[in-house]
């Protein structure tokens, strides 16, 4: 039945998966901190700088620095959510009310299984991508699973049985479906460009798209319009300002999570930031060259384990910059009105994405012509 080797393999996979979840959740937690800090700095404030752990905080200079940066704040926030009373309002549909946060978090964490975040060099000099599952259709997997994330919001909105969450749920489902189209269409020309006949790249693999960007321009410079449309759609899909229709505190109180509190609200919160982390990672992979160094340059680090470590670090640095960009945009732009969101999605982004696709189809066809 089960032999030992297989069990070991299974155990290792589970361990890697847990590590990855840990990494993404930590990044999500610290994104919350980054959100608070960056918003504070942009508004001339200081941000959270009080929380401190007893022993670590008393290290002479480092401890004070960490306290000032609020390094321990996510810990305190998490504990606060954990120890809060679990309120369930009397008018909700209890089963779906409890199910919704889980449904919101699971897709956010599932998408990261196909995210490559670095490469490992074997002794022969071959490179193996670091990822949980090397799927041939990686990008489609990400799109598919993240499209399931809307259920969490819709269920939360519906089961709360009150008007503001309901409006949030309705808005969210409409918005998600509208922007998924533009998102998919903006990615098509990218993959058309990458899978040139004759090169090794095939299909929709995320690893191939990263490797196609080493020693050549990043796809951001090749297809700026695709990148722009993808980025806007990404903002809409992750419910970030200026597209945070499902939440919009000022007109919907808290949107879909108005009736939630305590740990369930915390799960929604973390799921939202996990979406941002994964979204930033995908943008890095597709348009910013993944773990490869600057455009038009080969990686300056050696093809050893040090090199792969630096590569992962470089990838993380790009991802973190994008997370910062998400936050930066949030504290710069005001929220769109709902009809403006729909208008932008259907009458601006979708035709633009189609035009972009047609242009690149023609261009790729012209470039691929065999010399006469």
């Amino acid at each position, binding site marked *: 039945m089960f032999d030992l080797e297989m069990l070991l393999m299974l155990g290792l996979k589970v361990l890697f998966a847990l590590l990855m979840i840990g990494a993404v959740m930590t990044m999500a937690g610290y994104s919350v901190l980054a959100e608070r800090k*960056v918003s*504070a*700095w*942009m*508004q*001339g*404030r*200081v941000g959270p700088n009080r929380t401190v752990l007893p022993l670590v905080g008393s290290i002479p200079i480092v401890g004070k620095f960490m306290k000032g940066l609020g390094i321990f704040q996510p810990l305190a926030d998490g504990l606060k959510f954990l120890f809060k009373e679990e309120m369930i309002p009397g008018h909700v549909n209890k089963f779906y009310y409890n199910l919704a946060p889980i449904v919101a978090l699971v897709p956010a964490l599932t998408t990261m299984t196909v995210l490559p975040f670095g490469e490992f060099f074997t002794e022969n000099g071959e490179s193996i991508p670091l990822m949980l599952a090397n799927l041939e259709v990686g990008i489609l997997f990400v799109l598919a699973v993240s499209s399931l994330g809307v259920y969490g919001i819709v269920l939360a909105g519906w089961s709360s049985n009150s008007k503001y969450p309901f409006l949030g749920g309705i808005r969210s489902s409409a918005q998600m479906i509208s922007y998924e189209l533009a998102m998919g269409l903006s990615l098509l020309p990218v993959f058309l460009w990458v899978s040139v006949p004759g090169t090794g790249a095939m299909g929709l693999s995320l690893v191939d798209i990263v490797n196609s960007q080493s020693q050549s321009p990043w796809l951001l410079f090749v297809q700026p319009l695709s990148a722009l449309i993808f980025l806007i759609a990404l903002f809409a899909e992750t419910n970030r300002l200026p597209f945070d229709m499902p939440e919009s505190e000022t007109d919907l109180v808290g949107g879909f999570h108005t009736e939630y509190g305590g740990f369930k609200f915390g799960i929604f919160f973390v799921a939202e930031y996990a979406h941002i982390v994964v979204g930033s990672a995908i943008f890095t992979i597709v348009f910013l060259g993944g773990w490869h160094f600057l455009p038009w340059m080969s990686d300056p680090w050696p093809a050893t384990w040090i090199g792969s470590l630096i590569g992962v670090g470089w990838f993380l640095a790009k991802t973190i910059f994008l997370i910062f960009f998400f936050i*930066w*945009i949030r*504290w*710069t*732009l005001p929220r769109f009105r709902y009809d403006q969101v729909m208008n932008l999605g259907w009458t601006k982004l979708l035709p633009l994405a189609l035009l972009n696709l047609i242009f690149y189809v023609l261009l790729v066809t012209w470039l691929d012509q065999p010399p006469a």
Partner: protein
Amino acid sequence: MAKTVVLQRKPLSLSERTYLPQIVTGLKTTFSNMFKEKVTLQYPEEKPSIPKNFRGVPTLVKDPNGREKCVSCQLCEFVCPPKAIRITPGSVPEDEEDREHVEKAPQEFEINMLRCIYCGYCQEVCPEEAIFLQDEYSTSGYSREEMINNKAKLYELGGTLPDQHYKWDKKKIAEEEGNAH
């Protein structure tokens, strides 16, 4: 009269209609804000500077010689709109050298800080300049009783004001020279 000319708003150019340059401008603004000086006051450690005419907690003050100024005339108790002040009048013992020309002093002086509205009438009405609203603004307590400042507390909060009048000294000199009032 000059003729009013209605200016036509210029139609937006293509780059303006995409809003992207405007967004970039906004991003620049917020980014430069990140490095500006912070305006936050780290409150319990840093205190705001209090202006001189601030109306804080009412306190009782002593004169530069360290003597009680209040003569328990009860004008403040009378004028106090929310009736926060309660004075139990008492007399100054005859044998007290320092205050031999003063007859009365409060035996107990209570200001209920839960009632006080910081109007400053008590300070205005006091003929002896004994009660002042000073720069203390943060009072707290665990019970209602704690929020009633008694005489000792009021003098502790008030301290001594550098009062240049030396009213009692003048009185004393005047009496010694046989010219009271």
